[in-house]
């Protein structure tokens, strides 16, 4: 009867090593926050936390439980100087020297196993166009790109976040396979941060949402489509073809060939059905799928092959969030997510699609020890006419749970019970609920635990 009452284990953040996945228990809401973003770190992802540009400080987030704390140590700055091409020289400011250095820092762990594509140009021949010297623009070019500076100001990013990092967030792995110049690791972290904030917002605002609706809502807030729309509303445009001469203010990734079937790349559940992997049920989606309950695409090929525009855009947004996190701290990142992602408009009442609402409501009333729900006619008109209207209310005892109007009694009953179920699922403790991460602010009010529901109704 009660589903996952003891512990519902599900995952937010991609099903990848460094994603935040948390346990939702009824003990305390704060506990899941602490477990929330404590990812297990793999080597390539350390490149992001390790970078420091000359002149811009790295501020480790105050009291962070995340990986950044221990990743900040053991980083060293390894400048790489590369002779720049003529075009690059022409766009340099007069101050710019004849030799340009592209500063990147890398963790000591990476030093030996990482190959610089400059040292042997054949390494990145997959993505780099032969006529452009490097796969992505140099970091110096970021300082002279008006587009990039305007984007930085438009998003009102903190001054601590340098333009070089912004330029790096715009380089997709499919454009520059070198981990220290693309936004793969940034996007990794940013996705976890965004999904964490969205999840705690949804769980505190609507504590009774069933898993399917929770998946749908989080997909509506920070799914790839939404993030792509957000990036386009920021005024970010895509480069036609990545290269070092491209304006650093453009999103760079290698686009799909026209006529490619998205189903081959996209994470649609149906093609897994075609492959015979037949999984259904929320538990498998919770455990095996990504934060939106969708299939994670099998790694066909490596990261560097072409990808749809939507994915590149969403990676860019995630990378921006994580770069704010890395440079300006946790509060800035939270504020950014609040303003750009959580402030958007979603009709959460329209996410539901019930199968057997009447029975489900009966089960609910039984579970909650309410009286058996009875459908009663509140008012009606034209019962014998061509277009009658019945207004039916579902009553449990003397209390009306839901109400619906329809041209037939059965439909009206269905509508009424759907309304009652929605009213149950969309219970919200208040307009301005506090989320656990509010406790990280300066001298917060004492935390009162949020309402944790015992789970959705199954029968």
């Amino acid at each position: 009867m009660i589903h996952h009452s003891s512990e519902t284990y599900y995952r937010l953040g991609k099903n990848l090593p460094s994603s935040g996945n948390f346990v939702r228990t009824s003990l305390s809401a704060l506990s899941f926050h602490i477990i929330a973003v404590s990812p297990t770190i793999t080597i390539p992802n350390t490149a992001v936390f390790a970078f420091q540009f000359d002149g811009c400080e790295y501020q480790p987030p105050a009291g962070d439980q995340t990986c950044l704390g221990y990743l900040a140590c053991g980083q060293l700055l390894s400048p790489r100087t590369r002779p720049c091409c003529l075009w690059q020289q022409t766009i340099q400011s007069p101050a710019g020297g004849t030799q340009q250095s592209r500063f990147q820092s890398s963790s000591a762990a990476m030093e030996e196993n990482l190959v610089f594509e400059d040292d042997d140009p054949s390494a990145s021949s997959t993505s780099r166009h032969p006529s452009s010297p490097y796969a992505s623009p140099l970091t110096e070019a970021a300082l002279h790109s008006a587009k990039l500076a305007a984007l930085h100001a438009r998003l009102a990013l903190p001054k601590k976040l340098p333009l070089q990092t912004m330029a790096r967030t715009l380089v997709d792995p499919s454009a520059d396979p070198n981990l220290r110049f693309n936004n793969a690791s940034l996007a990794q972290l940013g996705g976890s941060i965004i999904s964490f904030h969205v999840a705690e917002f949804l769980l505190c605002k609507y504590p009774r949402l069933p898993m399917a609706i929770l998946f749908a809502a989080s997909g509506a807030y920070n799914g790839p489509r939404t993030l792509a729309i957000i990036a386009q509303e920021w005024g970010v445009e895509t480069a036609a073809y990545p290269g070092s001469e491209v304006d650093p203010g453009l999103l760079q990734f290698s686009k799909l060939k026209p006529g490619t079937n998205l189903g081959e790349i996209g994470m649609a559940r149906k093609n897994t059905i075609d492959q015979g992997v037949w999984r259904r049920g929320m538990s498998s989606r919770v455990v095996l799928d990504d934060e939106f309950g969708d299939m994670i695409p099998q790694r066909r090929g490596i990261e560097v092959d072409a990808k749809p525009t939507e994915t590149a855009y969403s990676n860019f947004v995630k990378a921006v969030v994580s770069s704010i996190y890395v440079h300006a701290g946790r509060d800035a990142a939270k504020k950014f997510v609040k303003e750009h992602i959580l402030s958007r408009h979603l009709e959460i009442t329209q996410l539901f699609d019930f199968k057997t609402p009447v029975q489900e409501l009966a089960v609910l009333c039984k579970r909650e020890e309410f009286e058996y729900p009875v459908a009663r006619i509140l008012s009606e008109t034209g019962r014998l006419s061509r277009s009658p209207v019945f207004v039916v209310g579902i009553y449990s005892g003397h209390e009306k749970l839901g109400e619906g109007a329809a041209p037939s009694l059965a439909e009206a009953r269905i509508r009424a019970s759907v309304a009652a179920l929605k009213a149950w699922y969309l219970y919200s403790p208040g307009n301005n609920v506090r989320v656990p991460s509010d406790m990280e602010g300066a001298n917060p009010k004492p935390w009162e635990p949020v309402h944790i529901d015992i789970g959705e109704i199954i029968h």
Partner: protein
Amino acid sequence: MRRITRLGRSIDLLRARAAAQTPSPYLCSACQLQATSFSTTSIRAARNNGKVPFTEKIRQRIWGTDKPPGLEDPYGDRSVFDRTKKRAKVEEAEEREDQLEEAKPTPDLSTYEPASTWDGLEKVGGFGNWWKENWDPDHQFRGFLPAEVIKDSDEVTAALHRAIVEVFALQQVGMPPKDISAAIPGVDLTHEVQISPTATGATLQFSQKASLEQVIQSLTPAVDDETTVKENPTESEEDVAADRSTIDPLHPSSPEVEVDETAEKGNPTESEEDVAADRSTVDPLSGSTQMTYGELVASWDPSWLQISLENPEIKFAIVKRTMQLTGLRIPDAAIMPAKTVKGLLAHLVKPPKPRKLVDALQQKEELMNIPNVSIYAKRVTPIDKHKSVGRWKVIEQRLTERGLPVTGHEGQSHAYGDYR
């Protein structure tokens, strides 16, 4: 102008007669015309010898008397230029005197014999020796400013520096700074003189190349050095006088040639050359021959720009000397507000006016430093747009592998896209 023409017309009537009457051999024809037209003396003279003017005759005929009433010469007042009345009064007075004289007994002219030659006769008129003074080839006019104006900013700076050094040198030896430009500007001795501003004016650190004495000596004109020595007998002047016997600064000599070409190497301008025209054996440039004016200006301690020009005497002298050295005219509007040398220099050396807007914008540092502004020197062509989104390399590759021209005109594809 109009009056002259009318005059011409009024003259024309009388021309033949007037020209016939009093020919003055010393006048050109134009002058003759003027003379005749304006003077009525001839008419009066004619009346003296019994000739009555035509109008008078007519009036006498009309009135039948010898003294006809009314306006004599009724047409006289028509002319604006008619001064016959005044003249007439004057003439009448003269007539009376003449009559008085005639009334006197005339002296006898027995002892008078006309001169046969012009010896002893006094000469009247002529130009004196004006022609000699002005049009002689050996007295050439030389203005105060040199003919060639110095354009190069470093050179102008050097000239200002020199003027300051010389003025303060004069001030040191106590000579009045106003006769700074008494001497024709010779070779510049002051290249290595460092100036440091003080409360009162400035102090000069002379090098061994150019000592105070040499500077002063280069400033004093050769003609009146005795007088200067007389009037202020400083020992410096004495030993200047002493070595003046040995070295003549104004005497050109052999090393000038190589100095010249170093000067050519350094900064070839006419002024430099005519400075080089009178080089002396004491060559201050010999050490710094390889030095261009730019390096020279850079070699000076910039504090010399802070020298105050409050003292009007100093200021006048510096401005005068600078004008003499450079040939630039400094208007009062620039002289008045210039409180320090810097201000004066700011007027002397101006950045050239930019021809294009891009140059003007790129001179504005703060505009160029705004991160969200991008300024292009050339028109942003479609090719530039393709390049900025990275499509151009693909287009180029495709075109080349099809063997098509990349741009309409071959080989100029690189000429596009020079940004900033």
